[in-house]
């Protein structure tokens, strides 16, 4: 690419500059996300070692990670991790937990029924609607065609 005018240069900078934040964001997302999954795996191995079956182990892992995430959200630590790690803390089950816990705390002032109880599902609601609806469709297909 030839750079003759100032505009060409600005276009060039514009094209090049977003790359480095993306790489950095991806790197942070990678290791934080990987670390959360690894913590999950260690909890899983521990449950297996204690003699739980596979399904129970998975459920215990989910509940524990959700509990830790709720605790850290309450202390306002999770939001800081989220700012740093982006998708690294959003995509694991911790992000789902944070999306429930965070509005529950923020909207406390609007009351315990419509504030906490209602706003809790601003982000998690869509996730449950689409996830559960899709699973019902899959189940119906499995009933008739498999």
């Amino acid at each position, binding site marked *: 690419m030839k750079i003759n005018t100032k505009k060409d240069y600005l276009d060039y900078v514009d094209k090049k500059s977003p790359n480095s934040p*993306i790489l950095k*964001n*991806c790197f942070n*997302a*990678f*290791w934080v*996300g*990987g670390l*959360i*999954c690894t913590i*999950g*795996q*260690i*909890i899983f191995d*521990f449950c297996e*070692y204690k003699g739980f079956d596979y399904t129970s182990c*998975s*459920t215990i892992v*989910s*509940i524990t*990670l*959700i*509990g830790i995430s*709720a*605790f850290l959200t*309450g202390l*306002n630590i999770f*939001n800081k991790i989220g700012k740093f790690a*982006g*998708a*690294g803390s*959003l*995509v*694991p*089950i911790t*992000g*789902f*937990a944070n999306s*429930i*816990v965070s509005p*529950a*705390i923020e*909207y*406390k002032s609007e009351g315990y029924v419509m504030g*906490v109880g209602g706003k809790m599902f601003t982000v998690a609601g*869509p*996730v*449950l609607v*689409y*996830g*559960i609806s*899709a*699973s*019902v469709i*899959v*189940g119906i*297909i*499995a*009933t008739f065609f*498999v």
Partner: protein
Amino acid sequence: MDFIQSIDLMQLLRCFIVGGLICIVGQILIDKTKLTSARILVIFVTTGVILGAIGIYQYLIYFAGCGATVPLLGFGANLAKGAITEAQSSGLLGAFIGGVKASAGGIAAAIFFGYIASLIAKPHIKKQ
């Protein structure tokens, strides 16, 4: 101490790498498409249901363990797996019961801990 010796380090490494890669996909979606986080979570959970229904995701779970089950894709795959298993054992009724049944622990935990946290924690005003 038996437990620490029984940990499979290769398994942890596979878990770390696969879990990290799934998060990178999410990060690229955030940076490149400007989708809101709610949409990204919906995309992940729905994709998980589809991958779980086709049966591909099960292989990733065999390979990476929690690296595949902890991300929301795994939550979706678990919904699909539950719906299929229950549908095969108790028919159409199972199609409605199975998905939520399989992920009930996670959903209930998130709601319960969320409620408890809201009772204890003070709101933090976002500076944005």
